[in-house]
């Protein structure tokens, strides 16, 4: 369970939305995050598991906003 970093199932990515806005998510493979620009939140993916909890999401910085 240490450095395993499996990709997220592409079929899952198709139906995942932002839990706050229900808007689209952008998959950032490098950072292993699912980014909701509408909500200004980046949801972490840990060991291939999307953590879609607003409390655990990273607020986007000004330079990351669209």
């Amino acid at each position, binding site marked *: 369970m240490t450095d395993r970093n499996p990709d997220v199932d592409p079929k899952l990515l198709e139906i995942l939305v932002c839990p706050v806005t229900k808007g689209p998510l952008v998959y950032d493979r490098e950072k292993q995050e699912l980014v909701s620009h509408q909500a200004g939140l980046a949801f972490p993916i840990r060991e291939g598991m999307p953590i*879609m909890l607003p409390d655990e999401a990273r607020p986007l910085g000004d330079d990351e906003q669209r």
Partner: protein
Amino acid sequence: MIDQPDSRDAPAADSAWFGDRAVPPEAKQGLVRGVFDNVARRYDLMNDLMSAGVHRLWKRSFVEQLRPRPGERFVDVAGGTGDIAFRILERIGAGDRAGGVIVCDLTPAMLAVGRDRAIDRGLLDAIDWVAGDAERLPLADMCMDGYTIAFGLRNVTRIDRALGEARRVLKPGGRFFCLEFSRVALPLLDRAYAAYSDAVLPALGRVVAGDEASYRYLVESIRRFPAQDLLLARIEAAGFRLARYRNLSGGIAAIHSAWRI
């Protein structure tokens, strides 16, 4: 219709029940998560001990009534350790599991236990594991053929929001299935069950999981949960059709089901 003998389901306007304590709604989720972080590793063992193995029969009956078919897609909410997901896939059989099951749970520690069990069973590819809140599902509208929640709705802060989310993610023709502890309908059984709950369950929690408080919460949350008819009315109020329920073991648990038309 909404006439309950006691007002257990109605804490003061601005609070939620955490077991027998009224807490601010925003606090309940964190408290519930604390319970499941604490019990995750021993959760399945505890369920076996607490229900003398009966929870397995209830879950089997639950999935039989769900009648999952090949190619269908399910979300199992609050299904951390994978019990329902495994049963759905086993019932579909080795054929077309293309739809698969998404397990969505508030507690990553529970999901980690479930994923390890899925690896042991060779079911890893058919299940996706997502940390998410039943009141704010991270799923698109109308993408699921079935929504299941087993022993989970009781732990949700705002049940009606969770029901609304269930309806939202279901396709028209999709079905909702809830398995939950309910209100014992038989006069003698209810007293025996109450005594058992108060004396035996927290003690088991202390001995087996090393956590009496968490299991005391579980007992109290069962008592607070709306009785069969009340839950049925709330499922209908959320916009579901053809809602019904069936008691298990004299009403110790019940299966509620409904359709999104």
